């Protein structure tokens, strides 16, 4: 039984928390050294080391491994029990205050004042002074007419807020579990004019919660890429040259080299113009962009990527159909392989504010047949849609160009809980760290119109200023004693 009790105490001990946090930290570090979610074959192919240990210790799937999940479970248990114990402590009846003067005066922020008090009732005067200093009484012990004790507090309830913030971490962990068990994601590719019935998406429910996609469909009207004009910066790479230029006042440090399209273009945005329908009824028209997802029936759609397809006419004949960027192909009477990079097409926003349509064009690359491994293909020219390109007697024309949007979708039942729990956690933790609270222990020892008031102040929180509060307390107590003296004189004069 003592062993069980010891083990029980260890479960909510702060030292256990330190140990568990350290273990979690260790796993996190390992997880940044080995690429998580990767297959062993691809890891080995990429030149990964220590294959034996990686395989048998499951280092590529650390965060879903039983060991890691067990540590997280222990952390959850520790956090829960710790928070529960602290909450129990806060809610339970506290023992009667029994501190003595010597004990109080050992504290760093403590004073003993000898004051004229209106006796009996000196304790009431002290309490009035404490109230004026912003304190409210928590506990009071009347030992005798000559001896009373107060515990008073001022400021935010930081201990309670701290417990609350720890419970919020628990809610976050629950949210992660709900995500792990219930979240589902996938991809859908749409070309302009195509629509997708959301019922056909691979989605699953999580208990009573699930996506509500009956009758909903999504249609792509247009996929657009926006570009902005970009001049290349001409600036030396050599550090000495950079310093030399900086010291050469009177000459420009940098120059810009305007580049023609498509080199002088950078992607500004990807836009999928979508129409959401319920049956035949239009629900909404929306421009889906990166950072502007669309929520439909509880499922969130994101702009993930795009894909292209085109045909290549050789000497006017439809020879190569359904090509895609970077897919290798061969040309008659030419050795090696060819490929066309992603075509640039969309709207270009010029630096002077004008807009220009960009006709689909992309570079043509050639890889020699006997090229060594790792050698890069050579650019042989730029192909523009519907414009013939001459290559060694062959006329190549890009045609039937199509561009589709790749949307990712995700259903996550844990998301709402996570947003709420993390926001509450952040607010509570910030208030706990930056707020302030003062706890005052006060001993009043009275004797015939005089009293020794001893007090000690403990503070919590970043913005706590115990020195200033001590001054304020002392001032409030002395003022109350002076008031008491004046009130007593008034009473004595009235009697006379």
């Amino acid at each position: 039984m003592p062993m069980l009790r010891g083990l029980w105490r260890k479960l909510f001990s702060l030292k256990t928390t330190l140990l568990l946090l350290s273990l979690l930290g260790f796993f996190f570090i390992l997880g940044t050294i080995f690429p998580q979610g990767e297959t062993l074959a691809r890891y080995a192919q990429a030149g990964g080391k220590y294959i034996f240990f990686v395989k048998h210790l499951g280092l590529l799937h650390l965060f879903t491994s039983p060991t890691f999940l067990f540590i997280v479970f222990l952390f959850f248990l520790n956090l829960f029990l710790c928070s529960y114990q602290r909450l129990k402590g806060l809610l339970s009846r506290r023992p009667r205050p029994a501190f003595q003067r010597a004990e109080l005066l050992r504290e760093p922020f403590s004073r003993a004042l000898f004051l004229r008090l209106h006796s009996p009732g000196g304790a009431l005067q002290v309490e009035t002074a404490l109230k004026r200093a912003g304190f409210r009484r928590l506990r009071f012990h009347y030992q005798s007419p000559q001896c009373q004790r107060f515990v008073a507090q001022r400021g935010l309830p930081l201990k309670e807020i701290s417990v609350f913030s720890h419970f919020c971490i628990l809610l976050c962990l629950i949210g992660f579990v709900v995500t792990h068990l219930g979240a589902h994601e996938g991809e859908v590719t749409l070309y302009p004019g195509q629509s997708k019935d959301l019922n056909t998406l691979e989605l699953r429910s999580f208990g009573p919660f699930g996506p509500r996609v009956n009758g909903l469909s999504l249609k792509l009207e247009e996929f657009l890429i926006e570009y902005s004009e970009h001049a290349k910066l001409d600036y030396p790479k050599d550090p000495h040259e950079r310093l030399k230029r900086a010291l050469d006042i009177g000459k420009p440090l940098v120059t810009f080299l305007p580049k023609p399209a498509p080199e002088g273009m950078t992607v500004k945005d990807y836009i999928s113009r979508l129409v959401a329908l319920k049956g035949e009824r239009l629900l909404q028209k929306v421009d889906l962009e990166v950072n502007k997802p669309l929520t439909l029936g509880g499922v969130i759609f994101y702009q993930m990527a795009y894909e292209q397809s085109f045909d290549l006419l050789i000497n006017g004949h439809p020879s190569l159909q359904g090509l895609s960027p970077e897919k290798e192909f061969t040309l008659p009477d030419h050795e090696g392989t060819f490929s066309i990079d992603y075509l640039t097409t969309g709207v270009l926003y010029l630096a002077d504010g004008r807009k220009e349509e960009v006709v689909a064009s992309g570079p043509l690359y050639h890889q020699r047949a006997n090229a060594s491994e790792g050698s890069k293909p050579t650019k042989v020219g730029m192909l523009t849609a519907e414009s013939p390109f001459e290559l060694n007697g062959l006329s190549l024309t890009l045609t039937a160009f199509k561009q589709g949007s790749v949307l990712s979708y995700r259903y996550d039942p844990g998301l709402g809980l996570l947003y709420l729990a993390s926001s509450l956690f952040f607010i509570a933790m910030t208030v706990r760290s930056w707020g302030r609270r003062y706890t005052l222990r006060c001993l009043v020892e009275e004797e015939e119109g005089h009293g020794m008031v001893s007090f000690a102040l403990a503070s919590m929180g970043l913005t706590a200023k115990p020195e200033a509060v001590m001054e304020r307390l002392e001032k409030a107590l002395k003022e109350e004693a002076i008031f008491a003296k004046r009130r007593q004189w008034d009473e004595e004069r009235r009697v006379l």
Partner: protein
Amino acid sequence: MLLYQGLLDQKVLLLSLEIRLFWLVVGLYLLSLLFHLLYFFEPTPPKWGKRATKLLLMGALLHTMVIFLRTIEAQRPPFQTLYESLSWFAWSGVVTYLFMKRKWRDIFASGFMVTLVALLACLYSLFVLSPEITSLVPALQSGWFLWHGILAFMSYAVFVVAASVEVTCLFFRASKNVASRYGLPSASLGLFRKEASRLILFGFPLLTFGIISGAAWANEAWGRYWSWDPKEVWSLITWTVFALYLHCLSLPKWRDLPASLLNLLGFICMIMTFVGINWLSKLLGIPSLHAYA
């Protein structure tokens, strides 16, 4: 074409001015560092310390102008590229140190580390990185960019200053007789060390916001609030280490040297999160969604 050429000429002028001012900032930080070094050899009277602080202040003011210029040129917050991020990081660290210094006027020792870190960051930017101003890529075009960036960097700056205070205290702990010559008699040493914990108490919520806002932003941009991306995980490691530090302060046996070591470990983790992960990702061939950051 003429209008475009005019725009390019304006860019050349502004960027040249900005880079030259940045070099001047580096010069001031370098001088400040040298004066801090001289202060270590001749702490009394603290003339070298005072001069070092004045130079640091001048450098910070000029650095503010550089950042302001950058913001105007780029028409966005200036912490997209590594060049901009390092400049912002250096500036934040120096400003945080100067702010903390208001309370500890006679203590100059901790300025050395802050100035060194700021100087190294600025030198790396100027000598190695491209100062090119790039438009925001689609993934960065979000309201989160501003707040995630500002508060995360503010937390980094606070941790740099906390680490410098801790290093100073550890150094003088070992040689208490020397400490009083540097404005830190025994009574003040404990209070000065407490400043490190106060700084971490201030910076910890900022780091927490950085992680939470980063997760919310990732959810909006990529559809997943957590991908176990190396940068995300290192920020979590940093958070865990500082959480350990704060919990250690509650345990009497752990609040002294162990807590100090955790503070320094947290600083190293912060550096790893900020710049080390770019290097680690390249070294180990692990792709990171944060590769541009």
